């Protein structure tokens, strides 16, 4: 029985998908790498009880009493040292404060060190309280540790954005440059295949992997670190698709003329580097001077990251990220248009 021939767009998308799945290293870079990064950074910045600041008490008749008083503070870790040892320990940063009560009560510390200042305040409070001081106004502490405000909550959407950028650009750019180099593009345009179908199929197969990529990373963040999607899944889906579209366009444009893989790799890194650094993947771009912020906000990754954080962390509705979507869509439309216009098929 003759085989049923499927439309070219489906065949092209299907072979592109198969090619990718059969490329083992690519699978690692797309799925494995971001997970490892999330795991490493997540553990490095996980919440834990604040460290106790080590402080020294100079050996003397009252030193044991002082150590007992200091130990009551959750912020201090006191020990008794003699004069010479204490001097060295302070100089080498092994302790942040030396308490000398041999004459009058004296605190020795580096006033530029935050730990030193904290230790001085904490130690003074503890010793004064032990000596009988009473607070004139009662106060209590209230700790803020809201889900959605931790570093990992900030990080996961950033990694998601970065991954969408990397896979979108490499997925399009590398495949196209490779096919051009092997003269496969030339062979394809020697058939009645429509050029738009080729480009479209590249994007469609990107969408397939994008879905898997997003699910894997979001599920990982949720299961391992409890990072939740507070906004709607629909908004997240639309963001990922439009973001993927913008970066596919950028990848197409990058690879539209390149004749070698080296050429396209260099260009890719040149384009992605500023976004890795400035678009708020690992830290907020609020730290940049306000004069450059408008430029940073015009970058597609900045828009994607901001919108992903708004939806995932702050449960923003879709209407609130419409400006972000508009910027991303504009990037996609312009890069696809120029990329196709200047595309070199052979």
């Amino acid at each position, binding site marked *: 029985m*003759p*085989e049923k*021939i*499927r*439309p*070219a767009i*489906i*065949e*092209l998308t299907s*072979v592109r998908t*198969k*090619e990718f799945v*059969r*490329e083992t290293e690519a699978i690692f870079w797309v799925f494995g790498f971001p997970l490892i990064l999330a795991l490493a950074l997540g553990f490095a910045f996980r919440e834990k009880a604040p460290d106790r600041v080590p402080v020294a008490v100079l050996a003397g008749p009252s030193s044991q009493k002082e150590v007992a008083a200091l130990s009551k503070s959750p912020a201090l870790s006191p020990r008794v040292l003699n004069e010479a040892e204490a001097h060295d320990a302070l100089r080498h940063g092994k302790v942040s404060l030396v308490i000398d009560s041999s004459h009058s009560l004296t605190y020795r510390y580096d006033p530029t060190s935050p730990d030193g200042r904290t230790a001085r305040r904490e130690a003074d409070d503890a010793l004064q309280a032990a000596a009988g001081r009473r607070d004139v106004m009662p106060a209590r502490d209230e700790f803020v540790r809201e889900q959605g405000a931790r570093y990992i909550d900030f990080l996961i959407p950033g990694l998601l954005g970065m991954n969408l950028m990397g896979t979108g650009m490499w997925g399009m750019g590398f495949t196209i440059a490779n*096919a051009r180099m*092997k*003269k*496969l593009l*030339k*062979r394809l*345009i*020697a*058939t*009645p*295949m429509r050029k738009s179908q080729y480009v479209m199929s590249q994007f469609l197969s990107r969408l397939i992997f994008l879905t898997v990529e997003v699910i894997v990373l979001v599920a990982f963040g949720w299961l391992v670190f409890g990072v939740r999607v507070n906004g709607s899944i629909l908004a997240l889906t639309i963001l990922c698709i439009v973001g993927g579209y913008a970066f596919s366009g950028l990848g197409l444009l990058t690879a539209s003329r390149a004749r070698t893989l080296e050429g396209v790799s260099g260009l890719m890194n040149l384009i992605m580097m500023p976004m890795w650094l400035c678009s708020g993947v690992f830290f907020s771009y609020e730290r940049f001077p306000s004069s450059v912020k408008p430029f940073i906000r015009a970058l597609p990754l900045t828009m994607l990251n901001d919108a992903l954080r708004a939806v995932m962390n702050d449960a923003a509705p879709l209407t609130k990220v419409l400006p972000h979507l508009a910027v991303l869509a504009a990037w996609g439309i312009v890069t696809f248009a120029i990329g196709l216009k200047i595309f070199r098929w*052979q």
Partner: protein
Amino acid sequence: MPGEAVSCRGLKKYYADVKAVDGLDLSVGNGECFGLLGPNGAGKTTTIEILEGLTVPDDGQVEVLGMTWKQNERRLRERIGISLQETQLSEKLTVHETVRLFRSFYPAGPDPDSLIHDMSLDEKRNSRVGKLSGGQKQRLAAACALVGDPDILFLDEPTTGLDPQSRLQLWEVVAKFRSLTTHYMEEAERLCDRIAIVDHGHLIALGTPKELIAKLEAPNIIEFTSDPALPPDTFQDIPGCHGCSPRGNAWQLRVDSLAEAVPQLIAAVEESGAKLVTLSTHAATLEDLFVSLTGRELRDA
């Protein structure tokens, strides 16, 4: 089917420092197997790529199936099949996936599996392209060229780098179709109805293999070396000799009858006091024609 399948007039394509094609006229009839023969760099690939609509000529007209590339690109693409020089099909796909992909571009054509069978690739149907031998890859490329049931088949050096058995296998396939470029004169002689010999972008001879060989005015070639080497006037006057040309350190004589010329040549060499070192004869080929036309050899020209 009378009429012209492919025709071009005054074709020119200049690159920065080479005149790849320099005023070429060709006409290929329907049903004809036409070969383009010439050394590397003669302009064969540029010519065929212009005819295939992949390269735009600097000057000249091209008509394929009565249509021009400018006006009917898509319709023409559906009716021609192409095998390019050195295309690397995707190594990660299987033979069947590759043929099915190409089949999907055409409105009509044979079933992928029957084509795979015709190309003797049944056993390799589910093998990755990267694992195929050179001959299997070329047959796959031929399958991709035939997959749209084309009216014209363009093959650019279809058997380059293949072992003799793989070449024979591919020739059988091509024999059913028409049109190719090659620098193997044996291939051209065996397969083609008509052959154009090109060099430096110019047409230097055109005709059926028989007509072309007849241009040598002598059906046989004697090749010999002597010690010491002799000047041509010692032997070029023997009866039935139509000319001679040097080939390496040997001489090549184009003669009518071997039975007549060989004894005469031996006598002439002995008479001059030299000693015959080697002597061989063969029926004239297109290679000999190329040598006599250009003074250079086809393969390493």
